[in-house]
């Protein structure tokens, strides 16, 4: 009864409010529907960071701006304006910019910053992102770190800018683990390697004396799981980034492969082969307890968790050709989701949960594509002689994969999920099997 009265009151209030507002709207506002737009990068100006009187022999202020420009441009969402057109090269962060000047060069956003080199090899960096039209600061942050970390600060600033303008988290302060290849096709040497998302700071984690494949990052970033022929038996290993220690997740002579972490990092889902039959298994990394999730005589491999940890998408040829299937994490409720012509392989669930990326092979070509978890809305993003193994940026908007031309070495590529902005990943030579880290802390 009380509830009813309350509801009645509320609806009365609503009517009143509407009654007041409605005539005004009807009297005043002309209504225009805009249903088309131009999808294009937003022009922005990133000025060299102001170093003031601080000696800056490494030109950190300039280099940071360059890293930020490159990050934002690579996203395809921004177009960095040529600094030569700037009226002021390193405007101070202590005064409001002269927005007129930036409007004049059609900048919609402006980023300026200051670098202060402190004692003890430390630095403090602050930046501001300005909405040029509105004449407002959109975000401003300060960071402190050791001076050699200037690249990471730059990536964090690019992430902050990306996040403020798109409303979604960035992905620039991340790393890529991948397989660095050398020696040509006949005598290929494969090493586990890691680098920043922009190709900087490349480091090798294994020496190439044994073949390593398909590394994947743990959500905690502390570990990598991958497959290695070390010791002669191809097995899934865990690599501790902190200590460099590697260990096989299970012993024995059976091949284990195609590993991926669960979203909490506490379990690994992978394939185990026995008598030629590959099935999907799940292993708890603490108890080392294993559960077999598939039991078909067909090939079941390339499992990948949904970000909520409730389902697994995998690759199976149980229907006669390689296709994508989704199941619950106890192996129940298996459902095929790919029905297009051709083969579908290496499904990877988006961190956003809304899409599954895959490798598709059809009519002599390979593609990277995406579809919804129910199999609808398939979109092909790339085409080449060989495109394989997509990995998602942590915000679910960009995919990295590897491409190989006939007879050539593989290399890393990236594309955004609208299929635009396809580009080669710079800073790295022959490489395959990339896996994107989560955002670093």
């Amino acid at each position: 009864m009380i509830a009813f009265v309350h509801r009645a009151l509320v609806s009365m209030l609503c009517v009143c409010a509407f009654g007041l507002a409605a005539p005004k709207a009807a009297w005043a506002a002309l209504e225009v529907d805009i249903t088309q737009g131009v999808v294009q990068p937003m022009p922005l100006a990133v000025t060299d960071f102001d170093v003031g009187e601080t000696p800056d022999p490494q030109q950190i202020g300039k280099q940071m701006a360059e890293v930020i420009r490159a990050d934002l441009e690579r996203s395809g969402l921004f177009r960095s304006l040529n600094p030569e057109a700037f009226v002021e090269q390193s405007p101070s962060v202590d005064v409001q910019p002269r927005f007129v000047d930036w409007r004049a060069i059609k900048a919609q956003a402006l980023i300026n910053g200051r670098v202060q080199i402190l004692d003890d090899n430390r630095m403090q960096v602050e930046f501001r992102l300005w909405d040029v039209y509105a004449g407002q600061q959109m975000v401003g942050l300060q960071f402190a770190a050791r001076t050699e970390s200037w690249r990471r600060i730059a990536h964090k600033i690019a992430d902050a800018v990306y996040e403020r303008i798109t409303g979604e988290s960035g992905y620039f302060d991340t790393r890529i683990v991948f397989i660095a290849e050398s020696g040509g096709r006949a005598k290929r040497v494969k090493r586990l390697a890691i680098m920043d998302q922009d190709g900087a700071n490349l480091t090798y984690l294994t020496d190439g004396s044994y073949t390593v494949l398909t590394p994947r990052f743990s959500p905690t970033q502390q570990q990598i799981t991958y497959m290695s022929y070390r010791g002669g038996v191809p097995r899934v290993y865990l690599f501790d980034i902190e200590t460099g220690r590697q260990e096989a997740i299970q012993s024995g002579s059976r091949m284990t492969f195609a590993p991926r972490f669960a979203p909490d990092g506490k379990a690994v889902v992978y394939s185990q082969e026995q008598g030629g039959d590959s099935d999907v298994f799940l292993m708890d990394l603490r108890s080392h307890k294993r559960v077999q999730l598939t039991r078909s005589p067909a090939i079941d491999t390339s499992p990948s968790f949904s970000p909520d940890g409730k389902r697994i998408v995998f690759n199976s040829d149980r229907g006669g050709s390689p296709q994508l299937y989704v199941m619950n994490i106890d192996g129940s409720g298996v459902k095929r989701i790919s029905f297009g012509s051709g083969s579908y392989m290496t499904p990877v669930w988006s961190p956003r949960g809304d899409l599954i990326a895959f490798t598709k092979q059809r009519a002599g070509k390979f593609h990277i594509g995406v579809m919804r978890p129910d199999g609808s809305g398939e979109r092909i993003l790339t085409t080449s002689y060989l495109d394989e193994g997509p990995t998602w940026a942590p915000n679910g908007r960009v995919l990295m994969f590897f491409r190989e031309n006939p007879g050539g070495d593989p290399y890393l590529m990236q594309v955004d999920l609208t299929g635009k902005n396809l580009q080669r990943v710079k800073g790295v030579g022959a490489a395959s099997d990339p896996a994107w880290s989560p955002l670093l802390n």
Partner: protein
Amino acid sequence: MSRMKSLSMWAGIGLLAFTLSACGTGRRGEPAPLPPPPPPPEMNDDFLPPPPPPPPPEEGIMLPPAEATNDPYADMQVLPGSIEDFHNAATPIVFFDLDSHSVRADAAETLAQQAAWLLQYPMVDVRIEGNCDERGTREYNLALGAKRANSVKDFLVAQGVEPNRISTISYGKERPLDPGSNEAAWAQNRNAQTVVIEGATQPL
């Protein structure tokens, strides 16, 4: 012992490579036109004729050879039970159709020869290495290579070879015999290779 094992393994690989290039199928880098894929040997409608049993081996498999040499071909005398002997008796490789792990008719003949030799030398252990062409994903090909290796193993076991003498491994698309990117190369690279890893007669 493990040193012996690896020595014989390398000998096996070396021999295999030699055999392949001798057959005119091995390739080095150049995208030169390749001869057609391994010829499906003349079809024999009689499925799996038992191969003529080779001469019985001499007593004592570990007979030391007359003279030791590093070059197995310097001495034209083939030691019974040696890796070279195996390669003379049977082609150590069989090929598969696209995205298939079924043993082809031509492969069945080859495998029957392999089985016969293995039955003759029961001390010998082998490893079947499954391989795939580059037209598939790495992970799927690891699984497919395992299926191919196991198809071969199953075939040999069906011929009477003890299962515990045969191990398998898949290299997926990691070890192409032919680095080319064309039909001929792919046909070469869809294979299972039988590698003697243990118990072969060793030249000293």
